[in-house]
């Protein structure tokens, strides 16, 4: 499965090894790991809870993976995203892209993360010494995703 939602931690090395096993045509493996930070908006974060919309999450991620494969010359794309309780330094998300060459693999990996951030239905709630709060969406994430939109035609 190119897309997995799970509560347990993942082993990035094992995931990458499994993804490229028995395929000597692969010349590049690009990956991204998102981690839980111990600070946000200037406050200490002691714990985080991630929730999602079961069903829609998988569909949204599968659509993003399909689009990445259509837009770049890559072979395999894997997304593993955790839900539930996490502590600072814990791994949250893994994206791995394999391909013949690094350029396409890097681009596809960044695209998947930028779209995941703005289109996949996950929500973070963080615990701080001031109490629990829902993490606010960032405009910078929208801007990052916007970069991948096809250029608007200037012809009227």
């Amino acid at each position, binding site marked *: 499965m190119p897309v997995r939602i799970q509560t347990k931690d993942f082993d990035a090395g094992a995931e990458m090894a499994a993804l490229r096993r028995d395929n000597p045509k692969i010349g590049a493996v690009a990956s991204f790991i998102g981690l839980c930070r111990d600070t946000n908006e200037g406050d200490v974060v002691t714990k985080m809870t991630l929730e999602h919309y079961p069903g829609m999450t998988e*569909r949204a991620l599968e659509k993003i993976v399909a689009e990445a494969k259509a837009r770049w010359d890559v072979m395999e794309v894997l997304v593993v995203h955790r839900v539930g309780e996490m502590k600072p330094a814990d791994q949250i998300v893994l994206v791995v892209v394999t391909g013949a060459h690094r350029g396409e693999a890097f681009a596809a990996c960044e695209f998947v993360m930028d779209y995941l951030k*703005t289109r996949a239905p996950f929500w973070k709630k963080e615990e701080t010494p001031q109490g629990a709060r829902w993490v606010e*969406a960032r405009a910078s994430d929208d801007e990052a995703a916007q970069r991948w939109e096809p250029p608007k035609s200037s012809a009227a």
Partner: protein
Amino acid sequence: MKIKVLYLASLREQLGKSGEDLEIPPATSTVAGLRALLMARGGAWQAALAQGKALRVAVNQEMAQPATAVRPGDEIAFFPPVTGG
């Protein structure tokens, strides 16, 4: 018509429920119409669903727009902008 409505993340907490099965008038045929119907409950509903609040809506687990049609049996989810990754 009968539909299923879900409230997720911070919206669930503001409204005090995670979802409900609803019987709505056939004239409520769009996402915007459903939002207005729920807002008319007043109180927390009025506040949480008010125009200008950053809200996302999915119909049958696909992102939707205010004009997206609502049909019998649909699953409509209201939620805040996403913050995964």
